[in-house]
C-alpha cells in the first residue's frame, strides 16, 4: 500500500511540474501561429507567445494553451512588440508653462489626463507606450512622464515608474518665440530672444542650482556638526531648484528639443560644463551634420521621418537623418509628436529603409527597442523576450509595409484595441441607425 501511495504522490508531484502554469484571467493571453518579430532575438516564421499575468512566459512553437486562457489566432499575421512613441504631448491637461522661460517645477506627471481619446488613437496604431512631454515654449520646461496606453484605467496606473526621469529642454525658434509679432504697446518680448540668450539662461539656472545645492550642503554640515549655531534655520526649499539639483546629481536626464547643429553642439557643451546627461535630442533635424559627435557623446536622437520645411530651422532636415545617424552608431528613435501621426509610426519608421538603407529589423527598432533604451525601460519592454511585459501589437502585413494595418494592441496581456471588435460595433451601430424608429407608423 505504501508503495502505491508513494507512486501516486510522485505522479502528482511530476504532473504538477509539467502542468500548464496557473493564471488569473487578467493579463493572460496566448497568441498562436503568427510571424513573430522579436526585434532582439530574430524572426520566428510561425510561432506562439504566451503571456501570463502581464509577463511573457514563453515564445515558441505549438505552446499548449492553459485552460481557459484567451487564445488569439495570428495566422498570416505579424506579431511585434508594442510600439513606443518617445515624443508626444497626448494624455495631458496642458503641455506648456509659457508665462516664463524657466519652469522646471512644472511637472507633466501632475496633469496626466487618462480621458484623452488620443490614447485610443495611439492604440489603433499599435502604440502601447508613450513619453509624453512639455512642449517647446521654454529653455527649461520641466519633467516629462512615460505612460502606458491603458485606456479605461485610472491615471495613476498609466504611469511607468521604471522609466528614467527626464527633463525637457528646448532651443531655437519656439523658445525665441520667433513666430510672434512684437506689437507696439503690447507685452514686451520675453528673454531670451536669441539662441545665445537661450544658452545663457540655461547656464544661469545651472549656476543658481549649484549655489542652491551648496546652501543646503552647508546647512546639512552645520546641522550635523557637534556644535550647530544657535539660530540655525534651513534654507528655503525651492521646487524649481530641486529639479535642477536632481539633474546635476544625475537623477534626471535631459531631453532637448533642438533643430540646428550649432545649438545641439552648444547644448552638449553645457551638459559637459555642468555634468548632466543629455539622453536624447528631440527632432534634431541637423543631426546628420554632427553624427560623429552625437555617437561619441552617446547622445541619442528622437526624430521625424520627413516632416520638415515648416520653419527655417527645419529647412535643412533631410529624410536620411534617421537612417544615416543610425548607421553612424547614434541611438535613433522615430516619434510622432502628433496625435494624428501616432497612428502611422510604423509607416514613418519604414521610410528609413528607403532613405537610409536600414534593414527591416533596424527600421522596426526605431520604434521599439531604441526608444525603450532611451527611456530606460529596455528591461521591461521594447522587444519580445521571455520575462518582458506582454506589450504586443498584431499587424496584418509586415509592419514596414505601406499596406499594413494594426489589428490588435495588447498591453501586459490585456487587449486594449481589437479591430475585429471595432468593426462589429460599427456594424451594429449602423444597423441600429438604419432600423425604423419605434412608435412611428410602419
Amino acid at each position, binding site marked *: 500500500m505504501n508503495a502505491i501511495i508513494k507512486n501516486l504522490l510522485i505522479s502528482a508531484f511530476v504532473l504538477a511540474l509539467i502542468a500548464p502554469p496557473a493564471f488569473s484571467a487578467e493579463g493572460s493571453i496566448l497568441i498562436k501561429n503568427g510571424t513573430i518579430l522579436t526585434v532582439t532575438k530574430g524572426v520566428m516564421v510561425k510561432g506562439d507567445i504566451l503571456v501570463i499575468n502581464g509577463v511573457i512566459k514563453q515564445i515558441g512553437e505549438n505552446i499548449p494553451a492553459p485552460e481557459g486562457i484567451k487564445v488569439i489566432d495570428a495566422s498570416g499575421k505579424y506579431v511585434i512588440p508594442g510600439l513606443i512613441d518617445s515624443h508626444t504631448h497626448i494624455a495631458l491637461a496642458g503641455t506648456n508653462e509659457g508665462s516664463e522661460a524657466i519652469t522646471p517645477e512644472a511637472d507633466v506627471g501632475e496633469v496626466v489626463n487618462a480621458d484623452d481619446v488620443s490614447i485610443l488613437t495611439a492604440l489603433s496604431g499599435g502604440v502601447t507606450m508613450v513619453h509624453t512631454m512639455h512642449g517647446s515654449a521654454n529653455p527649461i520646461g520641466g519633467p516629462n512622464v512615460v505612460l502606458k496606453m491603458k485606456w479605461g484605467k485610472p491615471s495613476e496606473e498609466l504611469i511607468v515608474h521604471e522609466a528614467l526621469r527626464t527633463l525637457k529642454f528646448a532651443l531655437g525658434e519656439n523658445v525665441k518665440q520667433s513666430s510672434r509679432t512684437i506689437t507696439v504697446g503690447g507685452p514686451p518680448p520675453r528673454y531670451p530672444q536669441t539662441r545665445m540668450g537661450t544658452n545663457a539662461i540655461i547656464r544661469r539656472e545651472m549656476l543658481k542650482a549649484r549655489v542652491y545645492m551648496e546652501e543646503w550642503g552647508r546647512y546639512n554640515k552645520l546641522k550635523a556638526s557637534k556644535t550647530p549655531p544657535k539660530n540655525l534655520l534651513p534654507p528655503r526649499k525651492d521646487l524649481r531648484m530641486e529639479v535642477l539639483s536632481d539633474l546635476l546629481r544625475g537623477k534626471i536626464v535631459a531631453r532637448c528639443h533642438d533643430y540646428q547643429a550649432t545649438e545641439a553642439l552648444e547644448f552638449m557643451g553645457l551638459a559637459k560644463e555642468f555634468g548632466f546627461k543629455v539622453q536624447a535630442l528631440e527632432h534634431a533635424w541637423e543631426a546628420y551634420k554632427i553624427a*560623429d559627435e552625437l555617437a561619441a557623446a552617446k547622445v541619442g536622437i528622437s526624430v521625424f521621418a520627413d516632416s520638415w520645411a515648416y520653419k527655417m530651422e527645419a529647412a535643412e532636415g533631410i529624410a536620411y537623418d534617421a537612417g544615416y545617424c543610425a548607421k553612424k552608431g547614434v541611438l535613433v528613435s522615430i516619434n510622432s509628436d502628433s496625435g494624428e501621426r501616432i497612428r502611422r509610426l510604423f509607416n514613418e519608421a519604414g521610410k528609413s529603409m528607403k532613405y537610409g538603407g536600414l534593414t527591416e529589423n533596424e527600421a522596426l527598432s526605431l520604434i521599439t527597442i531604441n526608444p525603450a533604451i532611451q527611456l530606460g525601460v529596455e528591461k521591461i519592454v521594447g522587444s519580445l523576450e521571455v520575462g518582458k511585459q506582454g506589450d504586443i501589437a498584431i499587424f496584418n502585413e509586415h509592419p514596414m509595409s505601406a499596406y499594413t494595418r494594426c489589428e490588435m494592441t495588447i498591453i501586459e496581456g490585456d487587449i486594449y484595441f481589437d479591430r475585429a471588435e471595432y468593426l462589429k460595433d460599427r456594424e451594429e451601430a449602423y444597423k441600429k441607425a438604419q432600423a425604423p424608429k419605434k412608435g412611428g407608423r410602419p
Partner: protein
Amino acid sequence: MTKRMFLVCVIMGLTAGWISAQAQPAKVIAIRGAKIIPVVGDDIEGGTIIIKDGKIEAVGKDVAIPSGAEIVEAKGLCAYPGMIDGYSFLGLQEISGVSATVDNRETGRINPQVRAIEALRYDSMHIPIARSNGITAALVAPTGGLISGQSTLIKLDGWTNREMVIKSQAAMQIEFPGIRGGRGGFGGMGRGGAVTADATRLIAELKELFKNARYYQKRKEFAAKNPAAAQPEFQETLEFILPVVRGELTVMISVHSDKDIKAAIQFVKDENLKAVFFGVEQGWKVADDLKKSNIPVIISSLYDMPPVWDDGYDSLFRNPGVLNKAGVKIAFSSVSASVAKDLPYHAAKAAAFGLDKKEALKAVTIYPAEIFGVDKIMGSLEKGKAANIVLSDGDILETRTNIKKVYIDGQETDMSNRYLELLEKFKKRG
C-alpha cells in the same frame, strides 16, 4: 564667308545642337527586360518599352529594338507610369511657416482671377524630391476663401514654370468649409460636439454670382452687337468666373460633410458645371449619390483625423475603398509641398483599409489623368502617350521601394535633390 561670319556659324551650330538637345530628345531609348505595369492592360514580365520623340513608341513583351537606340537594361526592375498628384502646393510653398516663401493663399474671399502657374516656383526644392519618388505630374492649387483661384497641372520637370505646364488653367478652386469636429472628437483636447459645416449659404452666394456673371456676359454680347449701347463696366470677378459658368473651365469644389456633398452635387447639376470634388471626407456616407452624379473625387490627404468621432477612427482610410467600390472615380493627393513625395503611401494606406491594390495604383496614375482630361497623353504605359516612366526595384506604392530612374517626356530626369545634396555634403566629413 568672312572669318567673323564663320565663327558665328560655328557658334550657332554648337548652340543649336545644345538647344535642340534640350528641347527635343531626338534619340530613341529602349528600356529592356523590366516587369512592366502599364496600369491599363495586363502586366508584362520581361518587357520592353521604346521611347521616341518623348513618346512611348511601343510597349510589349517581344518588341523590336530599333538600331541606334540607347538600351537601358532593366532586368529585375519594375516599369510604372509616372504618378500624378491630384492636389498639391508644389512650387507655391518652400518653408510653410515663413510667409515670405508661401504663395498659395491670396487675401480676400473671392479671387477667381489669380493663377497658380503665375506664382509657381519651378526650382522649388520640393519638386525634385517628389519627382525622384516617381511623381511626374501634379495639380498645383491655390487655397483659401470661397473662390481661391485657378489651379494648374504641371509636369515635374522644366527649366521654367511655363515649360512645366500641361494645363495652364486646370480648374477653378472653390472651397466649402470643413467640419469643425476635430476638437470635439479626435482633436485631443476635446471640446463639446462636432460643428457640421453648412454650405447652403455659400451655394446661394455662388449661384447669385454665377447669375450675375451670365447677365454680365449677355450685356457684353449685346454691346458688341450694338456699338451705340453702353458697355457694361469691367468687373474682374465676373470676368474670370465666366469660363466656369460657361462650362469651359472645370470647377474643383473642396467639400467635406455628407450634407454639403449632396448640396454640392445639386449645385453642380443646377448650374450645369464641369466639376470635380476635392476632400470628400464623408463621401462614404453618400457614395451612391456621388456615383449617380458622375462627379469624380480627389481624395484629400489621409494624414488627417476623422472629422467626427462617430465616423470611426479609420474613416479617412476606408473612404477611398468605399467610394471606389460604389463606382466613384477617385484619385489621391498629397495636399503638400514638403511631403508631396508621400503620394503613393496615401494610396497604399487606402489599400490597407479596403481599396483594391490595383485600383489604388490607378488612383495615382490613370484616374487622375482622366479626371484632368489628359488621359490621352499620360497616366498609363500605352503607345502614343508621353514617356513618363518610372523604373523601380519594387512596388512603387511600397515604402521601401527605391526609384532608380524617372523619365518625363522621354527625358531621363535628374535624380538628385535637396536631401541628397545635403547628405553628400556631410558624408564628406567621414
